[in-house]
Structure formats: structure tokens, C-alpha cells
């Protein structure tokens, strides 16, 4: 098993955070994993993406050209990555931010709306991770939640729990 | 007063031109090191320029730095060896031209090192080209009609650095007369003591003769400092905080 994932959108949407949570969860399950970020002069607002590979064996190149899955948070990224998706690949779309024609085969989630229900729109990334894991079952819910906990523990228990709640809400959307 | 060669100086003839100021400065610097009994703690940084061969004359640990970089080399030596006494010995090309940035930032960090800046208003080793400190109208091999406004104005390092808060001590001296040489030695001693007392960045600018590149006799060059150069570069203490 080797799955290649691209998470993409704008800086500030938690793109890198979402990728980091995936690799942390992967390590908890003793998988081999790599994370490669786009990096640039822009810290916020510019296009950003990260490439995550989760595998049972040694990973060669950490760079992903033909992803199995794309988690997409912007129109620009949607146009760019829909073409590179593997034939049997899946795209997950934050439909609060990207409106698409009905006939395209993608999984959509109004992730910002969902996040706002919990009091903040900056947890759309957690909602999308929930949807992704529920659909693909690449990693276990428990290890994802452990990874979320690890990632937010410096911000306190309240924030950890809130993120886990949004993640679970995303899970329930499949 | 003792008028005998200091222990920190090797007993050897030296390569400088007749009447060159370096020999005098080498000697008074060595006398200070003997008087402060710090010879075994010295790590000196020589520049690129006539004084690159400092190690031939100084009997203490010495290294060479690339052109302009002695302040960086000295910063690193002092930071990793705070118990050593670290000084750089630099000319005007080295310190004020190619090494201007290192000079500014080393001063701005208030590094606890000492810089001896030998200003002879020209590039001596390469044959007498214009330096940042070259006098207006001075003839050099690259200002054959004399230095003009287009070539810039003499750079006053002490005045420039005196605006930096973290600088502890700045003095300009000369070695063109017995009295001035004694003042120069006192300034060198004070700058070294500052380092020993952890006071931070000290720089002594020493106006020195370069008869060869000034197209003068050694005796005329003493007078040139008196009449012209020390007018453009006034002697005195610029900072002592």
C-alpha cells in the first residue's frame, strides 16, 4: 500500500497543519510517511500545498505528481490538481470556497460552514480531514484524534477538544 | 621609562619600507602586551595588506583573515574563547573599504574585541592606490590627477562609529612624533584594558606614515601627518563611555 495525497489551498487555511496531522497519525500506526511542503516568500494568503505519502514500505521521492487523493481548499488549486489526479483517484473539495458544476465526481463538504457551527471558521481543515478519513479509511480515527491532540496540545485542552469535535463532524458527513 | 625591545616582538629585521609607520605600531602594541602580561592569552588577527606578515614580528598566536573580514574572525574567536584577548590589526582598505560592513556590524554588536586601525590614507601593499581615507587632491596610482569629489571624500571611521550606541571606546592617534607615539601607546593600552575589563568594542585609529605611496621622504611624511592628514582626521577621543 502506498497512497499519495496533496492538500492544497491558500496559506492560513491550515494546509500544512492538516498534512502534519496525517503524518503523525501514520507514524502512530507504524507506517512509513513523508511530508513535503510548498514553501515560499508568502506566509499567508499565497497558494500553498503539501504532499503527503503514506506507505508500508520505503518511500523514494517525497514529491507527488499524480496524487491518489487531493484535499482542495481553493478554486485555483482545484483547476490545477483535478487534471493530475490518478484515474481512480478522489478529490475532496471545500464547497464553501469552490463552487463546481454538478457533473464532476468529487466529494464536497461545506467545511467552513461546518467549522463555524463550532464557533470558528479556521477549523475547516479538521472537517475536511474527517471527511477524508471517513471515506478513504487510510488511517484509524483513534490515531487521527491522537495526532490532532498532539498538534494542538500547546494551545490547551479546549482547543484540542474543539478540533476533535469538528473532525468528528466531518467524519459524520460521508 | 624602558627603551628596549619588548618580549612580544621577535628579534628580526622587517620587510616594511623605510619610514613606514607599521614598525612603530608593532612595537608599541607589543610593549603594551608585555606591560599587561597578556602575551600568552593573545590571539591576533592580521589583515590582508602590508601587515599580513604581522606573525613574522609578533611572538604570540596570530592568524590571517581574508581581506576585510578580521572583525568577523575576531568575533568568532572571542565568542568561543572568552578568556583570550583578541585583537585585529587592519589597514584602511581592509577595514574601511572591503570590510566596512563587518566593521559596522561588529561595532553594532558591541563585541568585546579590540581593533587597531592603521590609517595611512592609501593602499600600501598593492602599490599606493586610492583608499576610502585618501585625502582630497592626493595623488595615488588610481587618482593620478589627485582625488576628486567623484572619487569620494575621506571616510572618517571614528566619527562614523561614534554614532553607534554599543561602541565603548574610540580614539584617533598618530605615530609621527615621539609625543604622539606615547599618546598612541596609551590609547592602545586603554583599548586592551577595556577588553580585559569586559567593556566591549574598542577601536584605536592610528594615523601612520607611508612615505613610499606618498612620494615623500620619511621625514617629510612625519610633517604631512602634522600639517595635512591630522587636520582632515583630527586626533582625540571620540567616545569613551
Amino acid at each position: 500500500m502506498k497512497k499519495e495525497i496533496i492538500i492544497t489551498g491558500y496559506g492560513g487555511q491550515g494546509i500544512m497543519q492538516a498534512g502534519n496531522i496525517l503524518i503523525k497519525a501514520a507514524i502512530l500506526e507504524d507506517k512509513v510517511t513523508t511530508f513535503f511542503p510548498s514553501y515560499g516568500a508568502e506566509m499567508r494568503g499565497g497558494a500553498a500545498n503539501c504532499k503527503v505519502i503514506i506507505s508500508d514500505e520505503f518511500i523514494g521521492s517525497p514529491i507527488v505528481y499524480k496524487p491518489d487523493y487531493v484535499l482542495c481548499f481553493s478554486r485555483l488549486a482545484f483547476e490545477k490538481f483535478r487534471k493530475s489526479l490518478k484515474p481512480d483517484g478522489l478529490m475532496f473539495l471545500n464547497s464553501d470556497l469552490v463552487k463546481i458544476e454538478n457533473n464532476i465526481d468529487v466529494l464536497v463538504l461545506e467545511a467552513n460552514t461546518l467549522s463555524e457551527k463550532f464557533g470558528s471558521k479556521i477549523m475547516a481543515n479538521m472537517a475536511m480531514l474527517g471527511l477524508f478519513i471517513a471515506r478513504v479509511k487510510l488511517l484509524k480515527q483513534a490515531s487521527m484524534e491522537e495526532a490532532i491532540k498532539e498538534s494542538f496540545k500547546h494551545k490547551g485542552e479546549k482547543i484540542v477538544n474543539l478540533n476533535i469535535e469538528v473532525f468528528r463532524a466531518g467524519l459524520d458527513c460521508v | 621609562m624602558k627603551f628596549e625591545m619588548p618580549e612580544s616582538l621577535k628579534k628580526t629585521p622587517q620587510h616594511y619600507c623605510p619610514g613606514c609607520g607599521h614598525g612603530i605600531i608593532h612595537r608599541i602594541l607589543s610593549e603594551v602586551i608585555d606591560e599587561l602580561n597578556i602575551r600568552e592569552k593573545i590571539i591576533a588577527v592580521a589583515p590582508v595588506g602590508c601587515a599580513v606578515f604581522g606573525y613574522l614580528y609578533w611572538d604570540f598566536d596570530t592568524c590571517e583573515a581574508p581581506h576585510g573580514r578580521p572583525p568577523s574572525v575576531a568575533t568568532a574567536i572571542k565568542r568561543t574563547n572568552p578568556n583570550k584577548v583578541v585583537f585585529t590589526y587592519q589597514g584602511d582598505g581592509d577595514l574601511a573599504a572591503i570590510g566596512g560592513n563587518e566593521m559596522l556590524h561588529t561595532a553594532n554588536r558591541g563585541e568585546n574585541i579590540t581593533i587597531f586601525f592603521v590609517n595611512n590614507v592609501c593602499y600600501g601593499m598593492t602599490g599606493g592606490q586610492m583608499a576610502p581615507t585618501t585625502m582630497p587632491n592626493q595623488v595615488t596610482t588610481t587618482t593620478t590627477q589627485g582625488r576628486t569629489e567623484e572619487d569620494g571624500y575621506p571616510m572618517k571611521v571614528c566619527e562614523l562609529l561614534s554614532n553607534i550606541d554599543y561602541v565603548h571606546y574610540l580614539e584617533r592617534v598618530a605615530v609621527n612624533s615621539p609625543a604622539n607615539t606615547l599618546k598612541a601607546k596609551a590609547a592602545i593600552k586603554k583599548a586592551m584594558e577595556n577588553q580585559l575589563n569586559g567593556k566591549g568594542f574598542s577601536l584605536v585609529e592610528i594615523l601612520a606614515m607611508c612615505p613610499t605611496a606618498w612620494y615623500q621622504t620619511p621625514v617629510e611624511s612625519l610633517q604631512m601627518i602634522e600639517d595635512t592628514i591630522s587636520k582632515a582626521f583630527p586626533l582625540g577621543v571620540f567616545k569613551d563611555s
Partner: protein
Amino acid sequence: MKKVEINREYCKCCGICIEVCPVNVLSVSKEFNTSGVHPVELIGDCIACGKCYLMCPDFAIEVKEND
């Protein structure tokens, strides 16, 4: 009594010591040293003021007790 000692081999005959000597007892010798320089020599009664030592750029002059 202290007086000037000149290292003839180190001397480059720049003339600075002659210039600064207050009692004019230093002069250029007629002989050559091995570098072909006419070294400075003492020609009168030195008062051991040390000015020549202070200004000699060539480590060639010391003022020492005469033995």
C-alpha cells in the same frame, strides 16, 4: 649610564631618528650594512631621552645600559 645602541643590520636609514634627536648625535655612517644601507651611527654624547627608540620603525634602536 644608558645610551643608544643601533642594530646596523636592521637599520634602513629612513632618517627619522636623526630628525627627532634633540641633541643631534645621530648621523648616517659612511659604511654599508649587508643590505647596502648606510646605517645610522652615534657621533656624540647621547642623553638617553629615548625619542629615537620611540620613532624607529625598524626595531633597530634601543637605549640600554652601557656595559
